[in-house]
């Protein structure tokens, strides 16, 4: 590992990457699912208003959920077909939302057709923003609608536009594949974002060991004469977290409740930048995305381009089925992803991957007393004392926990990953945060 690469200074860890068998697999288009489950809440904010009724016919890319409040975001139909029913479902992270169940049928109006590109240079920033809003683009990491993320309030300036290609979660390689295979589109997307936000400089940040992606991007930047820097950073988890990334790149910290903009930065995921390109240049709504489907319970691990709303069961089939029963099914990365118990959960705009983990990969062990070893504290990128917070929460001493910084926790999972006693530190802290924010806790 090259120690010359910069990274964030405090805490963090280097979990087993598990990427070597996945990262060189080219993205292929997953088969179109016979039944799509399209949640109307795939972003942070209010669910979109449902515009379709059962038995109604929908076209590919048709608007089916309309953003009626500024906090919401449009949802489009990923496939042509017939609406079977609209029903409330629970997303892996616990949100309840109406979802449109679409049975595949009819003709695709994009798939397999010629692709037209539309020039965007010279279009005004507000027009570009409304194009993003119309096509339902959201930040793939946070779920914040892209048009809100890129809208810079009057009087604020953006010093740095960061395209986040760090992808620090183990297993996940989708962003890496985009950087390798779609370097040109990605750079174009970054330039559109730059045209909107007018930053002092644009940077693509990636892990220093991803040399193939770095070279591909460097070559394209030269060809296109784009004004974008590439910054290779030392891979450490959670470098992909906005706060840590800004700290590593610019040395600036912003506190709880602050946003990247307080540090003069706007951060866009690689996947988001690609979606920006597709929305503006191809005028295509966000109905499909690249994800990694991995884990030793699968016969094949893959990077797939899937339609939003594809149920997990279809992905298992796409990957050759199970060779052993998974011990955990995870939507998202292994450090911050959510465990689900059935295969009907759909892919949403913010799903970065799906993991089917064998017992060996989890490395679970028996729970013991806290050893006071301090591994949690030394791995915490926020400078907290997770074991102390956990004990406060366990004893319902929420106010003490607040003073110790409970609400600063970014739930990156480092503490519980490192804990030899296998205490559910992150879960406990999350529960404490929910109580402090007025929820019921766990």
């Amino acid at each position: 590992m090259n120690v010359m690469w910069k990274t964030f200074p405090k805490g963090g860890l280097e979990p087993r990457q598990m990427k070597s068998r996945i990262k060189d697999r080219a993205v292929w288009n997953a088969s179109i699912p016979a039944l799509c489950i399209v949640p109307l809440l795939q972003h942070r904010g209010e669910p979109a208003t449902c515009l379709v009724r059962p038995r109604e016919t929908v076209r590919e890319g048709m608007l089916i959920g309309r953003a009626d409040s500024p906090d919401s975001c449009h949802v489009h139909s990923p496939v042509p077909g017939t609406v079977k029913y609209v029903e409330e479902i629970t997303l892996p992270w616990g949100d309840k939302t109406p979802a449109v169940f679409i049975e595949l049928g009819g003709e695709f109006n994009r798939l397999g057709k010629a692709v037209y590109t539309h020039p965007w240079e010279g279009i005004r920033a507000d027009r570009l923003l409304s194009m993003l809003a119309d096509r339902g683009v959201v930040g793939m990491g946070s779920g914040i609608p892209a048009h809100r993320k890129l809208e810079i309030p009057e009087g604020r300036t953006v010093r740095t536009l960061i395209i986040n290609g760090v992808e620090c979660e183990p297993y996940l390689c989708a962003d890496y594949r985009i950087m390798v295979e779609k370097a040109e589109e990605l750079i174009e997307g970054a330039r559109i974002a730059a045209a909107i936000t007018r930053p002092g400089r644009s940077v693509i940040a990636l892990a220093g060991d991803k040399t193939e992606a770095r070279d591909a991007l460097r070559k394209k930047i030269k060809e296109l004469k784009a004004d974008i820097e590439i910054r290779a950073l030392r891979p450490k988890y959670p470098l992909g977290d906005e706060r840590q990334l800004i700290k590593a790149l610019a040395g600036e910290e912003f506190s709880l409740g602050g946003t990247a903009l307080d540090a003069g930065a706007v951060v866009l995921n690689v996947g988001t930048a690609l979606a920006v390109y597709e929305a503006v240049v191809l005028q295509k709504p966000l109905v499909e995305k690249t994800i990694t489907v991995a884990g030793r319970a699968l016969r094949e691990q893959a990077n797939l381009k899937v339609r939003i709303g594809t149920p997990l069961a279809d992905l298992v089939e796409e990957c050759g089925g199970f060779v052993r029963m998974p011990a955990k099914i995870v939507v998202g990365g292994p450090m911050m992803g959510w465990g689900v118990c059935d295969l009907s959960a759909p892919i949403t705009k913010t799903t970065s991957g799906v993991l089917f983990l064998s017992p060996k990969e989890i490395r679970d062990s028996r729970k013991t007393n806290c050893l006071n070893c301090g591994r949690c504290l030394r791995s915490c990128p926020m400078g907290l004392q997770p074991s102390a917070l956990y004990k406060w929460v366990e004893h319902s001493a929420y106010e003490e926990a607040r003073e110790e910084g409970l609400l600063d926790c970014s739930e990156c999972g480092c503490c519980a990953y490192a804990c030899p006693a296998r205490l559910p530190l992150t879960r406990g802290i999350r529960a404490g945060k929910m109580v402090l924010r007025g929820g019921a806790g766990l």
Partner: protein
Amino acid sequence: MKQEIPVTSSPQIHDDASTTNIMWSVFFCLLPPALWGCFVFGAPALRVLCVSLLSSAGAEALCARLSRHPLTLWDGSACVTGLLVGMAMPPGVPSYVPLFASVFAIGVAKWTFGGLGRNWMNPALAGRVFVYFSWTRAMTSWSLPAALHTADALSGATPLGFLKRGMAENTAFYRSPMEYLRANGYPRSLFDGGATDWLNARILEPLGISLPQGYIDFFFGFMGGSIGEVSALLLLAGTVFLLARRVLSPAIPAACFGTFGVLIWIFGGLPFSGEYFAGDLLFHLFSGGLILGVFYMATDIVSSPVSLSGQILYGCGVGLLSFLIRLYGSAPEGTAFAILVMNVFVPLINKKLRPSRFGRAKGAMRE
């Protein structure tokens, strides 16, 4: 799907290290030096180790039972404690001494505070110090390895004990502690003579250095001392493994050896040649229980500080106290006491030296 798959919260994966495999890997790294002790000191050493291990395991089982706690022997921590207690005993000590040491270690130092992870001092050291003051004579009667037995049967002594006795009189005639040992007839194995000659002829002399005789014995473990402390070589081999597996954090040993080494180098020569910067580092590192104590007791994850800066301070403290006791104390060495004293400060260190919170430091962006 037929089989139940649990809904779990993040993180979904874990590090290799678990309580169980940390404890058992420490245990297995301690076995080679312990067995070396049995090899050089013979059957009495093996008896001491067996007594300490069995009584420690027994005490653990009993305490868990009495506290209505599920049996915790599987986690390996009681076995590590038992083995460490035995390794810190003189080879010929009567069996009741390790028995009481183990029972005190587990019963008092560990379980009165609530068992694994709750104790504030290292149980094995607490046990050792308890019996040291209870049966001081038994705990300070040393025997020499069979390989060192000379014709004029010297009353067994550790190199440091031998030296301390000499320093009470006068050592100013000698240039170094090793020279004192040689001149006053501290025994040496045949292996040492051969190995030192070979090293000097083949490797060191071409480089312009010469190794005096005696050090090889210390390094390999032909000297008087506790059962488990004599073989620096095997202790260090285990340490390398534990450091590579990241079971041990290197901060404490580094700080400790750094402080101790610098102080010995500056002041260690004073009782001999009277000069500063003339201390005999090799002698002080490899004689006595410093290596065992620092790598396996000071780094005890339960009773050492949690933050990196805390660990460095704690390590420096252990190094400083070890140095003071060794050069100016009445006992030959005091790694055990140094660590116990620093254990007392750990809660304070943990309270004062904690990482700064992200986004709360001076100059950070405010909301």
